[in-house]
């Protein structure tokens, strides 16, 4: 029945793998703060956070196993956020 919950069972092992990667990424993101990256500091931190959140969305939040609709919607929400930030900064950047 398509109306019942998806019975896709993710093995414990895959969750543990993702968790390990997330923790390593956290440690890396702390580690790189000791390296002088100049203007790239903010960029690196946001990039690592984005990678981590993508992993959480895809694996922990099951987007990989869900229907396509949710995948498109989540992508669209982040694009929307990006556009709103961009337009707001059209004011602050050029004031």
């Amino acid at each position, binding site marked *: 029945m398509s109306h019942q919950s998806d019975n896709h069972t993710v093995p414990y092992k895959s969750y543990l793998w993702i968790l390990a990667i997330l923790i390593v990424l956290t440690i890396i993101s702390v580690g790189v703060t000791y390296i002088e990256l100049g203007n790239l500091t903010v960029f690196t931190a946001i990039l690592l956070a984005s990678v981590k959140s993508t992993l959480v969305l895809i694996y922990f939040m099951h987007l990989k196993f869900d229907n396509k609709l949710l995948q498109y919607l989540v992508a669209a929400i982040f694009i*929307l956020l990006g556009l*709103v930030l961009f*337009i*707001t900064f*059209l*004011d602050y950047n*050029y004031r």
Partner: protein
Amino acid sequence: MSDRTNLSFREEKGNRKGIFAWILSTDHKRIGILYLYSIVAFFLTGVVLGILMKLELLAPGKTVMDPATYNAIFTLHGVIMIFLVVVPGLPAVFGNFLLPIMIGAKDVAFPKINLLSWWIYVFGAIIALSSLFMAGGPPDTGWTFYAPYAFKTNTNMLPAVLGAFILGFSSILTGINFIVTIHRMRAPGMTWFKMPLFPWTLYGTGWIQILATPIVGITLLMIVGERVLNIGFFDPALGGDPILYQHLFWIYSHPAVYIMILPAMGAISEIIPTFANKSIFGYKAIVLSTLAIAFVGYFVWGHHMFTSGMSGTALYTFSLLTFIVAIPSAIKVFNWVSTLHKASIQLEAPFFWAASFLFVFMIGGLSGIALGALTTNIHLHDTAFVVAHFHFIVFGGVGFAFMGAIHYWFPKIWGRMYNARLATTGWMIFFIGFCTLYLPMFFLGFSGMPRRYYDYVEEFHGPNVVSTIGSWVLALGLIIILYNLIRSATKGEVATKNPWGGRTLEWTVDSPPSLENFDEIPVVTRSPYDYRKNIDE
């Protein structure tokens, strides 16, 4: 009625008695009617406040109230009309009542959450209005709660702001409910492009409710933070930027205008083909323009802030985007007019409302172009011109569509007909009153009369008198309409299933519908506006 097999949803006996059978009902139709009664009550409150404001402006100087009272009254008028009437308006009343029936479902996806949203709405309204009765008096900031005045004023800001915050939840839950309902519960055979246009606009509205309301939620929480904790987010004395408040506020409040107008456009798109007895022109164009308005409407908020001191780049961008968002609205108007072309039109009250909607919406839209252009905006900003513009859109557009919708679906909701002649008379008086009330404001604004002032110089006297008289005519029209509808709800002639010859699914069920709407879920095979054959064939 003799051909009924089921009791109607109003007669169906539940296990609860009296008023509890209504206020604890999870039936989408009963919830829609609960919303209708609460919204009409708040609307009448707002109308009384509006008439008081016009009365004050009858003559220069103090007429009936002092400036502080005037400030409180225009704030309350705005808060009540925006947050309690127009934002929930069409989606909560007609969306709740009709969305499941129009897509061939028995209820919305989450009936309990639906009831919860009504309760949250009532709770939010009580909190917001409690400011009236507390020491300090109602807020005097205008419905926009602009910083930094919003956390400097000594009036009762907190209840109003928290009330608006709570009302946001109600709006979000309704939006979630409608989107899930449309995704999951369309009748077999009803593909996306076989869905009627009113549900389509509710779909667009639902997305704006979900994606824009949280932003105003957090902004209002920040105002609470400012007042209670003195954090300094928007206080220049502590390093904050008041213009950032305006950005955040309008990121919601501009899309909110589309929460209001999209379902109104949906209702008009239902009324026009029915009374033109003709398939709607450019169905797909209307659908796509609905989605385009919802999307582009999210990025035009800055046109409320042209004089705030934004950067030039931002000004040009927002002005350009504002012109772009006008295009899909215009597409809709062309489609409606083309539908009427060479049609044999039934001249009934709902059609009069729809036709006058086109008229006032066009005036509102064109004056919006004047305001969206940077140079004219500088001259017209914060004048009565703006007030006239948005009343033409929000009261003229949304209000007329609401009136049209209630006259159109009245037989379905109450199972009775109203007096057609009285309905037409009421419409005519209301329409004349509306134009007399708001058209002079364009001229006043153009000659420089600022908005939100309780006083004016002698040269503005004439148009203001005309405008105030207009408010009385409008009130008279409103009384006739209400009298007709209230009387007809119990005493009118019994209505048939399909008194207007509509083609959408709600006209295939009983008037009023039974508790579960359909005995059997229909299978949809043709487009919603197929006027070649009779609906029963």
